[in-house]
């Protein structure tokens, strides 16, 4: 009986020592997971997830504080990618939290009073302008996060959806068209 105890204690002590040593030896600084999650996120910096930007959301996911379905701009595909990355089940968007179409902000330059509030709100510096000067959106840099809408005191910013045109047109999943000639 005593020998059984000794055996188990011995095994436990030995394993404990090995694991303790390797915990020090193989210590990893930081969490590489955050970078990977951040790479999947769409970087709109819109804050719809409840975190101030994509990186903080990535950190929260890595810690397991929040679900992977809180990023509407990433779409369902984004959730799927996160699910694959983290090895968890796909979670659908909550009620009414789905993705919207792509859009860019547009400033009505007649109404703008040049208050610079939107410039301070823009997370990617996509608004050009100065105090008491008319502002304008640099459309190519705008992520469509809508963060500039609430601060505007004269409501001169609107979201314009990006229409399909000849440069951004995509092939659809196939429809059948005849390509075979009859001899």
């Amino acid at each position, binding site marked *: 009986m005593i020998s059984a105890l000794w055996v188990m204690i011995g095994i436990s002590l030995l394993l404990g020592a090995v*694991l303790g040593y390797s915990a020090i030896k193989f210590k990893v600084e930081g969490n590489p997971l955050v970078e990977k999650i951040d790479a999947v996120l769409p970087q709109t910096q819109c804050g719809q997830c409840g975190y101030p930007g994509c990186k903080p959301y990535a950190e929260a996911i890595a810690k397991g504080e929040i679900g992977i379905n809180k990023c509407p701009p990433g779409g369902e595909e984004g959730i799927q990618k996160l699910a694959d990355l983290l090895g968890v089940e796909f979670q659908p968007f909550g009620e009414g939290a789905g993705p919207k179409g792509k859009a860019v902000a547009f400033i009505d330059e007649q109404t703008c009073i040049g208050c610079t509030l939107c410039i301070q709100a823009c997370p990617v510096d996509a608004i050009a302008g100065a105090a008491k000067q008319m502002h304008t959106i640099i459309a190519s840099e705008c992520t469509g996060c809508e963060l500039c809408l609430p601060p505007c005191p004269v409501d001169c910013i609107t979201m314009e959806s990006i229409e399909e045109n000849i440069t951004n047109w995509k092939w659809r999943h196939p429809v059948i068209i005849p390509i075979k000639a009859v001899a």
Partner: protein
Amino acid sequence: MSEYLLILVGTVFVNNIVMVKILGLCPFMGVSRKLETAIGMGAATTFVLTLGSGASYLIQHYLLGPELAYLTTLSFIVVIAGIVQFTEMAIKKTSPDLYQVLGIYLPLITTNCAVLGIPLLNVQAKHDFMQSLLFGFGGAVGFTLVMVLFAGIRERLEGADVPGIFKGTAIAMVTAGLMSLSFMGFSGLVK
């Protein structure tokens, strides 16, 4: 020498741990969605199993002996858990990518019945040290083999026109059953 070869061929094909002994089904179904995950899991299991078989032989033979045989299962679990923990830490340090891919399945090796089953089968079959090692290694190679095969099939199953109620895990189970049947073809290869 030929005896060792027979053990290898026997464990990889004839008595395949997953397909014939029906052990280790949890990672077999869980980590076989993607080919690279399956390969990573196979490699980790191979490492753990080979090490675990050797360690468990030593414990069984030198520490426990016949009088403490009732401690076999208990001590094996402790040892395997320790080895898995060690592997996890080592992989996290040396290959963060593989660590990422294996994710939560790495700790699951601890509760993987194949990993505990093989050392216990070793005891049952009264293998010596070398035979135990080879048995463990062969079993793990067999495990990796079917993991890779199954992952390859599942990747293609994604595009298959499967009836609605069979989609996902259901068709995967059917496929696993068919694979198991095909592995029966190896029986009789080694006497």
